[in-house]
């Protein structure tokens, strides 16, 4: 039963400075289907979606909606065409009520008055009706920030339904949901399908793709690889298409010799966030920290770095007990934290490469009272070359670099400070595959030179591919520790979900 697709995207291309994000990509969506969009970080999924929702402009290609070519130049166009997206970060006004959020910008007015005021009674009734259609029993007058994340997502779906959207994009919708909330979401997705609404479902989680999707399109390095019926494929095949290369090529792990103790943490606790965290990391070793999103991994390393407070616990750096109260203390002990959110926490985006690289070590470039710019430039150029940062000049503004090069600037900043313990939090998030391998090679280089590397990652292949040793965190506690040889996907997942 071949039918005319609801949406056809043809030969879509898009480039950013230094990166070809999409290379002549085709995508087809049928009425009432749930279509999975699969690919690693940097594969081009988000870019494709942002073009569809008007957040980005395509360089080339056509978008055909119900047989007619359309021109989507801004988010408003997309909404008017019935295309709506729900992102990981929800787009709600936290202090406004559920009903007000649903009808924000399209308020229901009283019509018979001379001055048309908002008809709150009708607004609430309508909101209640839409939520009920979704099987949700949420009080429409409740402020959104007092709802759980799952319910907030339902409010967002209700908001989209009230605009009469017929194409809904869900971007990693289950990333922050509990398993019960996920089940609830799947029920709602089936409801939407019945109404003839088409859904593009983006996820990393292969199980979900098989549970909920009719078809799946795999993307890699900005290219569409293949579209398959989910019933005619299996996990291994999808992984093969996603990765496109062998594990060895993707994770260029080298063998190193474990050196002396670098960082030891004993009973580190921050009430309600993490409890009794104890582990040791060594020089010449990559220690992977695995676990689900929200397990408390980021909070633990932020506490070690002095960015967040702790209630009790001890931290030893190279065998010496340290009282780390701020990032300044941690930095002076040789610890570096390369945060997961480099744009907001790692870089001064409006400043240039030179100033970003030297930011933490400016004092080292001080001659009497003034800075020695020649030395700063020389050092920056040296690091740019060492880390292969692609830029014509040290004066390039960091905002204009690609994600991978931005990440390398952050690493360069800590190399410039001569850090000895490098904590990477999701080091390859949002950077393209080539740059990932470069980041892994930098880690290799670091441990080879005797540094200690700690790497948080949500990507199991990455954890298993690069770590010498792995600890697993679940709900603020360490639930497992494995050597590289003992580790497999199954036992790590068990520890990460608290099954063992």
């Amino acid at each position, binding site marked *: 039963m071949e039918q005319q697709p609801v949406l056809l995207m043809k030969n879509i291309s898009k480039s950013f400075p230094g990166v070809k994000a999409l290379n002549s990509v085709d995508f087809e969506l049928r009425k009432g289907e749930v279509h999975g969009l699969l690919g690693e970080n940097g594969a081009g999924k988000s870019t494709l979606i942002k073009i569809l929702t008007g957040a980005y402009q395509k360089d080339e290609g056509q978008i055909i909606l119900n047989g007619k070519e359309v021109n989507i130049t801004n988010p408003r166009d997309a909404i008017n065409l019935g295309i709506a997206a729900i992102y990981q970060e929800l787009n709600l006004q936290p202090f406004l009520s559920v009903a007000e959020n649903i009808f924000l910008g399209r308020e229901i007015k009283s019509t018979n008055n001379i001055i048309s005021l908002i008809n709150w009674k009708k607004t609430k009734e309508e909101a209640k009706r839409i939520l009920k259609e979704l099987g949700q029993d949420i009080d429409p007058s409740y402020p959104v920030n007092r709802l759980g994340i799952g319910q907030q997502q339902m409010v967002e779906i209700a908001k989209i339904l009230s605009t009469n959207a017929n194409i809904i994009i869900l971007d990693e919708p289950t990333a922050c949901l509990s398993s019960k909330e996920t089940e609830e979401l799947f029920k709602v997705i089936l409801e939407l399908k019945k109404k003839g609404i088409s859904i593009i479902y983006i996820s990393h989680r292969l199980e979900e793709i098989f549970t909920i999707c009719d078809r799946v399109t795999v993307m890699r390095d900005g290219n569409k690889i293949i579209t398959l019926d989910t019933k005619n494929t299996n996990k291994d095949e999808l992984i093969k298409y996603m990765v496109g290369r062998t594990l060895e090529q993707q994770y260029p792990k080298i063998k190193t010799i474990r050196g002396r103790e670098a960082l030891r943490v004993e009973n580190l606790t921050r009430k309600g966030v993490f409890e009794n965290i104890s582990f040791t990391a060594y020089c010449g070793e990559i220690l992977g920290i695995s676990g689900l999103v929200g397990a408390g991994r980021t909070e633990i390393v932020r506490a070690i770095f002095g960015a967040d407070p702790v209630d009790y616990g001890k931290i030893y750096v190279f065998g010496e007990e340290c009282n780390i109260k701020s990032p300044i203390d941690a930095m002076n002990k040789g610890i570096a934290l390369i945060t997961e959110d480099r744009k907001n926490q790692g870089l001064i985006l409006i400043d240039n490469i030179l100033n970003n690289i030297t930011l933490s070590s400016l004092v080292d470039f001080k001659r009497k009272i003034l800075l020695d710019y020649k030395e700063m430039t020389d050092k920056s150029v040296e690091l740019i070359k060492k880390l292969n940062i692609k830029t*014509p000049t040290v004066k390039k503004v960091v905002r204009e670099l690609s994600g991978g090069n931005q990440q390398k600037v952050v690493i360069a900043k800590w190399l410039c400070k001569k850090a000895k313990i490098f904590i990477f939090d999701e080091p390859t998030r949002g950077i393209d595959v080539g740059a990932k391998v470069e980041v892994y090679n930098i880690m290799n280089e670091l441990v080879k030179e005797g540094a200690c590397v700690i790497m948080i990652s949500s990507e199991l292949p990455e954890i298993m591919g690069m770590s010498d040793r792995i600890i697993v965190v679940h709900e603020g506690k360490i639930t497992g520790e494995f050597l590289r040889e003992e580790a497999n996907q199954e036992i790590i997942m068990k520890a990460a979900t608290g099954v063992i």
Partner: protein
Amino acid sequence: MLAKTEIQGKIENKKINVKNLLSSAGALAGLIVLCIALSIMSPYFLKIENIMNIARQSAINSLIAVGMLLAILTGGIDLSVGSVLALSTVIMAILVKNFSLNPILGIIVCLGIGAFLGFLNGIMLTKLHLPHPFISTLGMMNIARGLALIITKATPISGFPKSIQYFGSAFIGIIPVSFLLVIVVYIIYHIFLTKTPTGRYIYAVGGNPEAARLSGINVEKILIIVYTLSGLMAAVGGLVLVGRVNAAYPLAGLGYELDAIAAVIIGGASFMGGIGTVWGTLIGSMIMAVLRNGLNLLGVSAEWQTVAIGAVIVGAVYIDVLRRRAEAKTK
């Protein structure tokens, strides 16, 4: 590869420096056009006495504005400068006139009080965790103004020794000392902001406070330094004002914070923080002084001058917006 990057780095270094100059060039071009127009309209405008007059008239705002620039670079603002100017100068006046304090010590006390009030602004912001410097400095603006009125019983104090009048009214040759002071101060601040770690930290804190903190910068300390310096510069401006009119009065500096903000913004600094130069601010301050002077010469009333200044603020920033947009498009 290294050689290539290095060479390119050097070449581009120069190119970008030119570009950096150009970013305050909009304001500079505005200043030049304004001067040409005024010199055509009024033959007196280009006379040396008049130019020195402008130099003198712009001095107070220039001195205050460089402190304001620091606050705005961190993404903040200092609304208290006008009141800090008043309180620090009337305290000096009372000590010198009523308690026969040595005038040099009086000057030091004046500067010290300005710096101390600024320091308190910084403390309120960082230690009391008031959400925005708009609030802490708004409070200080009222507190300092009120105290200045109380201790003077709302009356001016006049007649000062030569040493106190020096910065406001003396000349070296034909050049007013106040303007020389501005030049010296601006050179010092230029070096401070571009060539010292603390100066660079100010940009970093304004560009991204969280990234700055996680880069091991003591953000609170930087903010306290910034507001202390802003208070100090208000007192320096006050010293010039007292010298010029030979009087200290509790309503001195009323509205000066707005002139200082205007100079910084006309000079191309970003209100979001992280972007701005001392030279831009100096040009901004000069534009305001030239405009007032020129309109005076042309016999335009004070009321209409205010309208003109307002239009220049909006116009200058709008031109900047257009420029940025054009830049973004060419990328």
